[in-house]
């Protein structure tokens, strides 16, 4: 094996056995990180990925802009007399709808990422098990925040004026991001459960379209048939949309906020453990 040429141009620097030995001896083991610290570290990983692949922000910038423009001008004249009138009602709702739709990409990313070798390493680390998934969703929470800011900006340009001021708007966004974080555990579950990216996408569509459209985002449910009203009035998306609408309008919709947080808690309580069960079995 001594035949390897020394004339290769792009040689790697040699491995330094002496410094390697020193490193191996020197390394004392620090105590394992806390659950929070591990989760935040994985959140940092998600942010690094955004830094290296900024194209993945397309779905939280271009898509929300498109949603606001499309629905404002499509329904505005017919439903509220003019787009400018309509956006006052629509913007909080379309914000909720778009961000909830964006959560869908979590499943696809988990599904493609989990097949990679690095997950074997993560899973063989002595850390709080859910921290990988929590970190994922923390990174996604940043994406949801970006999407919300983008949509609000476009909305304001089109004439949306939130009476709740900065405080109301921030409270609305915070509630939406918390709800989306909780809701995303459905997608981590599907991302781990289904075998291919395509099937994750397919199932996600089946869940997300009825859930977001059958809500009070576009119109007041009063004109709907009774059975549909029953569904719409109890849909988590309706509660969140009402809560965000109220908060941004300067009200304090305590019941709707409570319903939204209740649903969020339920999503985590049900889909969190299922996700972790699948994750441990993978």
């Amino acid at each position, binding site marked *: *094996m001594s*035949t*390897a040429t020394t004339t*290769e141009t792009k040689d*790697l*620097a*040699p*491995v*330094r*056995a002496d*410094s*390697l*030995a020193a*490193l*191996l*001896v020197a*390394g004392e*083991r*620090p*105590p*394992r*990180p806390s659950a929070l*610290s*591990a989760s935040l*570290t*994985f959140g*940092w*990983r998600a942010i*690094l*990925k955004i830094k*290296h*692949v900024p194209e993945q922000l397309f779905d939280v910038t271009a898509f929300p802009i498109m949603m606001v423009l499309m629905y404002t001008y499509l329904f505005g004249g017919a439903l509220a007399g003019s787009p400018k009138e309509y956006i006052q009602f629509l913007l909080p709702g379309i914000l909720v709808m778009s961000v909830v739709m964006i959560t869908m990409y979590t499943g696809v990313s988990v599904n493609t990422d989990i097949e*990679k*070798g*690095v997950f*074997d*390493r*993560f*899973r*063989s*680390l*002595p*850390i709080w098990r859910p921290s990988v998934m929590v970190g994922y969703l923390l990174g996604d929470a940043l994406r949801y925040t970006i999407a919300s800011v983008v949509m609000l900006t476009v909305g304001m340009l089109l004439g949306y004026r939130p009476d709740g001021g900065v405080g109301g708007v921030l409270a609305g966004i915070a509630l939406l991001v918390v709800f989306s974080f909780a809701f995303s555990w459905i997608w981590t579950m599907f991302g781990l459960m289904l075998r291919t990216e395509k099937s994750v996408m397919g199932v996600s569509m089946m869940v997300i379209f009825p859930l977001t459209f059958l809500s009070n985002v576009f119109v007041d449910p009063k004109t709907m048939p009774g059975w549909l009203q029953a569904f719409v009035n109890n849909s988590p998306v309706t509660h969140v949309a009402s809560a965000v609408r109220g908060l941004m309008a300067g009200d304090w919709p305590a019941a709707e906020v409570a319903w939204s947080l209740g649903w969020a808690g339920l999503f985590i309580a049900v889909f969190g453990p299922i996700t972790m069960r699948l994750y441990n*079995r993978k």
Partner: protein
Amino acid sequence: MSQHTSGLAIETSGLVKTFGETRAVDGVDLAVPAGTVYGVLGPNGAGKTTTVKMLATLLRPDGGEAHVFGHDVVREADEVRSRVSLTGQYASVDEDLTGAENLVLLGRLLGHHKKAARERAGQLLEAFGLTDAAAKQVKHYSGGMRRRIDIAASILNTPDLLFLDEPTTGLDPRSRNQVWDIVRAVVAQGTTVLLTTQYLDEADQLASRIAVIDQGKVIAEGTKGELKASVGAGSVHLRLRDPAQRPQAEEVLRLALEADVQLEPDPVALTARVGGGAANGQGAAEQAARALAELARTGVVVDNFSLGQPSLDEVFLALTGHDTRDAHDADDANDSKDEVAA
């Protein structure tokens, strides 16, 4: 590694993992002494990676037991995880991140503070000759560089047990030698290494004990010397000038080496095993030299001669009666193997 008293880094008994109908690992017993390199040798699909994944707590065994430093891999998974590191067959680092980011990330996950994690990452990159590539995404690394960053990630905290799953598959000979050097340096500091490989050469270079595994079963186990004694130290490959002389050459070799001579598909080629049977592996070269002299004396013209280590194929042929290619072919291979294993 305080609680265990047996001196064993790994101890498994009757380890089983099934995927659907396939028994990927079918009753594996291993006893790996601490502080050594233990080689697990076998072809693709033999169950090497599945075994490693069970030992590294990534897969739950369907049967049998496995202990790492005395800790059960299922019931005390966290204890096991804090002692082992895994370098998988495919780079176990995040390809989208840079080399430095990967090491800092893992350093943080292992409990280092930000500053300590950065320092340690810098030192490792330096020791592994990757300082220049520190800010490059790993997906742009060459095969050799990936292996290095991967192993660097595995020794961020010096592990008691390091799993290296086919660490040199797909590497050029030069990078392969460098990986071997790294492994030797790691073992010299007291870490136990479980190495899986398809290359006898590699196991020979690094491991002190070797288990040969085929279709989920250990079919041979022992020190390198024992294994070679059962397989033969090597093979003589001959190419004659005149195909007509081959029967004569075959006869001469058979008498000189007291071994079976194989006729290759190429009409001028023959292969014979040397140093096999009772021989202890020494004297293979002398035997071969005697055979060559005998051929010259009897007038057989030899154009080309080589004495090589037995390949994995030859090991398998000797141990199982079928070569590695058959191992993938269905059940007829199964029968012949089971007889040998029994």
